Structure formats: structure tokens, C-alpha cells
């Protein structure tokens, strides 16, 4: 009765089969055939490409390169240095002037620096689905939201007869996967509320989350502290994916 390491024992006593190595070689060759072979080949190619890239990177640092001579703004060649540059001042002034105006405009508009400044606008018929109601199903004043929504913990529906916008419970989300841009790690944080939906104030009030929506998340997990010593527990984040297609909300923290 074979016991313990009987395979090794047998090999030690009796050696390998006469055709052992040939069979082994053939078996390994067979692995490169078929759909599995294609997958293996693809993987190998990806690995090879990656390896080449890393090698090149390492080579770059070891080789020496010519230093880049950046030309400064407004730099003049030596033979023109003596001239007074009135135009430049004017240009400078002009630039300055422009800059402040732009900044002021921005502040007035309430625009902030966000990772996704522009998003594709979502049409109303894409956002809502018309629900027919009534005895003869002719009334069409009800709408059902087809995107991910957030309703908050204290939410209760209006009486079904009177609610105009239906937010299905299957599309309600409470948590978001938030990435910290500097730490490069992702946390699963609770949503506190919707700050702004770029498609319109109606969607903000409804709580619809599409790509580019600014949401407020509970960051007490991260343990951030203000310079004054207070604990930060809410921060803004911007949604970076289409939640209705992925089934989850991915966001980037706005620091």
C-alpha cells in the first residue's frame, strides 16, 4: 500500500519512465493550443511589454542627458536687453487686469476646482421614465428616476397617489467608494447628502447621482483634523463613474 511520499520513493528506487521526459515536453506544448493557449499568450505578451517598459525606465535613469534650457517668459536676447519694454508693462498690466476679472467671475459663479470640470449633459428623458397611471392609464404626470439616487435616512415617501417622482428602492445607495487623491487609497464611506448635480437644481433636490455630482461623505474614518484642532467629519467628493451602469458609486475626495 503506497504510503507517504510514495511517488518520490518509487522514483528513487526505480527511476523515471522511459518516455517520461518526452511526455512531459509534449504536455507542456499542448498547453499553448486552443483558447487557453490564446489567453496564456496574451498574458505573456502583457508581461513582456511591462518588463520592457520597466527596463527602459531603469536605463533612462542611468544614462546621462542634455540639460533642458527652458526659456523664460519675456526673456530677451542679449542684444535687446537695453531697450525699455513699455509694451511688456502694458502687457503685464493687461494680463493682471484680465486675471482678476476672471477670478472674480469665477467666484461669483461659484465654480471650484474639481477633477471633472465638464460632464456630458443628461437629458430628461434619459433621467426619467414616464409612468402611466389612472383607470385608463392615460395620465402621464408621474416620473420614475432611472439613475442612482440618495434619499437620506429620514426619508418617507409621499402618499403614492400624490408622489410625482418615484425613486425606486433598488436604485438607492447609501455608501460610496471614495478615493483619496494623494494617499491613493479607497475607502467605503457613507454619503451624507448631495451638494450639487451639474445637470440642474431639480436633480440636486431629488438626490440623483450621476457622473460629476458633488456629494458630501462622512470622513470620520480617516481621522482628519483641522489646524484649530477640530475633527473633520464631512468632506466633499465628486462622482467619477456612471453608478447605474456599475452598480456602485466611485468618487474622488476633494481636498
Amino acid at each position, binding site marked *: *500500500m*503506497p*504510503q*507517504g*511520499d*510514495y511517488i518520490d*520513493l518509487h522514483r*528513487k528506487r526505480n527511476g523515471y519512465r522511459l518516455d517520461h521526459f518526452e511526455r512531459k515536453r509534449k504536455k507542456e506544448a499542448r498547453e499553448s493550443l486552443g483558447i*487557453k493557449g490564446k*489567453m496564456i499568450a496574451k498574458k505573456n505578451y502583457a508581461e513582456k511589454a511591462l518588463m520592457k517598459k520597466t527596463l527602459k525606465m531603469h536605463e533612462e535613469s542611468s544614462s546621462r542627458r542634455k540639460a533642458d534650457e527652458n526659456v523664460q517668459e519675456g526673456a530677451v536676447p542679449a542684444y535687446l536687453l537695453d531697450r525699455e519694454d513699455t509694451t511688456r508693462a502694458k502687457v503685464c498690466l493687461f494680463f493682471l487686469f484680465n486675471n482678476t476679472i476672471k477670478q472674480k467671475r469665477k467666484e461669483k459663479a461659484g465654480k471650484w476646482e474639481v477633477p471633472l470640470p465638464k460632464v456630458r449633459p443628461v437629458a430628461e428623458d434619459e433621467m426619467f*421614465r414616464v409612468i402611466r397611471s389612472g383607470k385608463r392609464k392615460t395620465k402621464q404626470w408621474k416620473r420614475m428616476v*432611472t439613475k442612482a439616487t440618495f434619499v437620506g435616512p429620514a426619508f418617507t415617501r409621499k402618499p403614492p397617489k400624490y408622489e410625482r417622482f418615484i425613486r*425606486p428602492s*433598488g*436604485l438607492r445607495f447609501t455608501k460610496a467608494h471614495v478615493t483619496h487623491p494623494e494617499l491613493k487609497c479607497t475607502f467605503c464611506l457613507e454619503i451624507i447628502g448631495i451638494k450639487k448635480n451639474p445637470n440642474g437644481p431639480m436633480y440636486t433636490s431629488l438626490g440623483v447621482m450621476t457622473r460629476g455630482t458633488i456629494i458630501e461623505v462622512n470622513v470620520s474614518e480617516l481621522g482628519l483634523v483641522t489646524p484649530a484642532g477640530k475633527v473633520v467629519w464631512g468632506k466633499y467628493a465628486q462622482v467619477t463613474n*456612471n453608478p*447605474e*451602469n*456599475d*452598480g*456602485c458609486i466611485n468618487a474622488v475626495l476633494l481636498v
Partner: protein
Amino acid sequence: MVKYNFKKITVVPNGKQFVDIVLSRTQRQTPTVVHKGDRICKLRSFYMRKVKFTESNFNEKLSAIIDEFPRLKEIQPFYEDLLHVLYNKDHYKLALGQVNTAKNKISKIAMDYVKLLKHGDSLYRCKCLKVAALGRMCTVMKGIGPSLAYLEQVRQHIARLPSIDPNTRTLLICGCPNVGKSSFMNKVTRADVAVQPYAFTTKSLFLGHTDYKCLRYQVIDTPGLLDREIEDRNIIELCSITALAHIRAAVLFFLDISGSCGYTIAQQASLFHNIKSVFKNKPLVIVCNKTDLMPMENLSEEDRKLIEEMKDEAMKTEMGASEEAVILEMSTLTEEGVMSRLLDQRVAAKMKSKKIGDHLNRFHVAMPKSRDDQERLPCIPQVAGEKEKRKTEKDLEDENGGAGVYSASLKKNYILAKEEWKDDIIPEICDCHNVADFVDSDILNRLEELTSEESLRKAEEEEVGFEIEGEELTEKEKNDLAAIRKKKALLIEESRLKKSNAQNRAAVPRKFDKDKKFTRKRMGRELSSLGLDPSSALNRARSKSRGRKRERYDDLSNDAMDVDVNDDEQHKKKKMCLRSKSRSLSRSRSVSRPPHEVVPGEGFKDSSQKIKAIKIGHKSHRKRDKAARRGEADRVIPSLKPKHLFSGKRGNGKNQRR
């Protein structure tokens, strides 16, 4: 308790392979084609099916892993300890726990995404959701990759453990490394353990079996033990310690008195004293091995003293029986002594246990009651006592190497003309004839005889037929039997005749009497013309073929012949005639009473009173009937629109019946 089979655990694929297997299965076994223009419910169900199918596959495979790997609490304590020593209980439990968590996570993912898929309104959206779901499941599997690799290693090792039964008769061989345990094992059993000159050749437990007195004994070979504290011991040594601790066996402690193993007797003695606590309640035999290298006499004084000490220790632990240190050189004799001691010990233990009552109750030795004081000894004829025991085949087998090595020669006792023919091989076909046909020289004659005998017997059987068992009937009995049979036949005939006689139907069937010529009258006329009195015949004919009202019919038929009867009367009589005719023709119809007939229980004095009462009754409801009002006897519908027939949704059916 679940029965685990360590050798039949399914292979645990590693993380990547697992994912590949399940995903390719999903791709092959679910429908693959769906069109953008299809109905939305079809799209949704297509993708939901894929998600659910993948989830169920993962679930199935992970459950199989969790079920097949043994739970440490449910297996024997010996195996539990052994597995702990080999694989580390905590690591093992953690790995299985991770697999379980992964299973639950995958189920949750599938549930969530199926809920989301119900809200998918386009092909692209459903497809994205399905991709997300499968992707998340595969990420979960990636996370438990290391656990799966560990479990696969455990499975491979566990399948190769020897299947030791901790409850049966066992011998355990222990001692220092390189003392000759494995060589002993090889000699005594058929196990082929590797024997090498270096220490720690045996790295795990090995199992072999021997027979002694028709009982099977397990022999367990352990790796050598070093003289260390229990905490310092490595895994290999811990294996043997586990075996010593859990298995109730006879222990053979091997001692190498020649010192060729590399350890002196002193070192071996100290090892013995270190582990003697494990030998409690086990029959212990100290085996001094390698006496061919150094015979016992050449041992020095202190060595001998050490051995004596060990023997004393051993005798202390033994339960009362005396014990000898056995000096052995790989002979089978010592094995006998050991095993008989083990057997005794096992019997003693059984006698002490509580269940002995059950066993003893099953035995009952019947002793005949002595009727007088005379002593009657068993009488054994001298011849039987003198004759020496015949050598049996089993003894021969044992002598020549045991079962498997010696095969008994079945042709030994053949009686042949010449002795050297015994070993010849008998061919089956020779000269195009079957040899078996010519086994006997007059086989054809025998065949003839047999067939003739057979045919004779058959003929006899047919002749005899059925007879009263064994007895022959006498002449008189035979006659009686014939008479009885005849009478029986007659009776049968009579009853048949009765059944089909004139009481049930006309004596003359209708097909012969279409004109209805065969009447009673005609019969009467014919009979009177013959000169016989027809009245009795006529009466009998009437009584048997007609019903009750034969008098009336008679009168009527007579009256009908009369010419000068009143029209009214005739009319009345005709009416009555018709009625009575129809009545009497259909004998089986029941007749209701006429309304004026007085029935005794009703309470009327006479028929006129009854008629009056009926008239008053009719009068009382005549008015109401004329007014067509609903009465008590009319049908009432309690509710014209019952709720259960007019409410509720129904699919495609009607509401005639609900």
C-alpha cells in the same frame, strides 16, 4: 457525525484557475446571443441568468470545499491532533473560514446586482451591470488565492496519510532514530518502508498489518525520537508523540545495544525515562535490537544496569502481569509473545468495561444436571489421542511464507495412473474435439440411459394424471365417483334450463310468432278439440306470463267483442283497457296510489274526507299561484352579485367560475 474520506477530497484549484473554470462554464452553458432590439424583459432575464448561474457555480464549488475538508472537532482525537501537528489548526481553520466568507460575499454580490438588473432599461446598461457583477465576484476569489493554495497542499498531504484505525489491535514501534524500527516493520509486515543508514529516514507514520491467531494486527512505524523537551520537538517527532498518546496499542520500545545508531544506551535510556509517562496503561515491551552486532553478554555493567532500570519501569506500568524484556533479532517468535500479551490486555480491559454485561448475556453454556455422584469423564478413544495432528494446508502455507507467497497446489491429491501426470496441463480442445466430451469412456451410453430415463418418467407422469395422494381408488369408489359427477352435471343442466325457461320470456319466441297466432284461446280451443280439459293449462299459462290485472284484461277482451255496449262505456272501458294494458305490460314500473285512496297512517276517516281535505289545500294557495308570487318552494338566489365572482384580478380566464 459526518463521515469524511480523506482520499476523496476534490481538487482545490488555485484562484486564477477557479475563476477561469467558472467563467468558461458560464460562457458555455448559458445562451450567448441577444439582440439590441429584443424586448427589455428578455434582455434583463438574459443577463440575470448569467449572473445567477455564475453565483451558483461559485457557491457549489466553494461549498464542496467546505464540506469535504474535515472539521477538526468532528474527527477522532488522534487525527485531530495529527492534523494540528502537521498543518496547524489555526491556519487551517482560518483558511476554511476565508473560503466561507468568500462564498457569502459572492452570494450577496449576486443578490444586489440582480436587483439592479431589474431596473436596467437598455442592453448596454444590463451588460455593464453583468460585467460589474462578474468582475466583483472574481475579485473576491482573487482575494482568497493564498488560502486556496494552502488548502490544496493540505489536501494532497492528507490524502497520503495512512488510514490508521485507532481502536483496533495495534502495535506501536518507537525508539531513537536509526535503531532498526523500519527494518523490523519490513520483516513483520508487507509494508515497504525505506531503510537507509542515515537518521530520520522515516519522516512520518507508516502502517502495516500482520496476522496472529487469525486476528489482524496493525503495526505502526514512527519516526525516531530525540531526547528533547516537548516544546523543542519538530513536526516529525510530534507525529510520533501524537501516535503514542492517542492510540491504545502495545508499545515496542526499541533499544540499540550496539550503539551503531549513534546514540549510547545511556542516551536511549534517558529518552525512555522522558517519555515513559506516555506508556501508561499500555503493554510495553523493551526490545534490544541488533544483538548480532553486540550480543547481550558483552554488555558492560552500567549498560546492563540501565536496561534493568528500564525493565523495572516497564514492569511498574504493566497491569499486574509479569513482563520480560525480550531479546530479539528479527525473528517472528518474539512477535508472538508481544501479541499474545496485547490480546490478554485487550480482553482484560473489555471485562472491566460496563458493556461486559451485554456480552456475557449473550453466552450461555449449558451444563447437564448431574443425576448422581458418579463422575463421568470425557471418553477419548486412544486412537484419537495417539494419532498425531495432521498437517493442514494452513500450516503448510505458514511454513512456506504465508498467504500471498505460497499457493496451495490443488492437484496434490489427484489419483492418476502415473504420478508425473499430476502437473500436466489439460487441454480443452484436441483434434477438433472437446476434451470434456471424452472424460468418460462410455459417456455416450450414459447419455442414452439418462435420456431414456427422463422420457419414461415424463410418460408416467402424464398417465397417472391427478390422483388422491398416494391412494388408489377401489372399484366401488370409482363407481360412486362417476355417479356423483353425473348427478352434478344433471343439476347444472337443470338450473340452466330453469334460467332460460318460460317464466322469463315467451315460450314461443317472437320471431316465430309475428302474427300473434299463438294465443291462449287458440291453445284452449285446440286442447278442447283434442278432448282435454284446458282450464288448468290456461290458468297456468296466464299466471306465469302475465301480470296482476289479468281479470280485467279478460273482461275487457270479452267486452270488446260485444257489440251492443254504450259508446261511453266502451270509451271508458277502452281507456281503462289501454291504461291497464300499458300498466300490465310494463310490470316493472311502480304504480302510485290514486289520490282518493286512504292510507291508514294519514288520519282520514274515509276517502271522501281525504278528497275534501285535498280540495281545501288546493284552494288555499290557488289565489297566490294566480298572482304569481314567489312561494317557499321557489328557487331563491341569496346574492345576485357575490363578491368572490366579481372581484380580483385574473389573467386570461373568465369569471364564470372562479
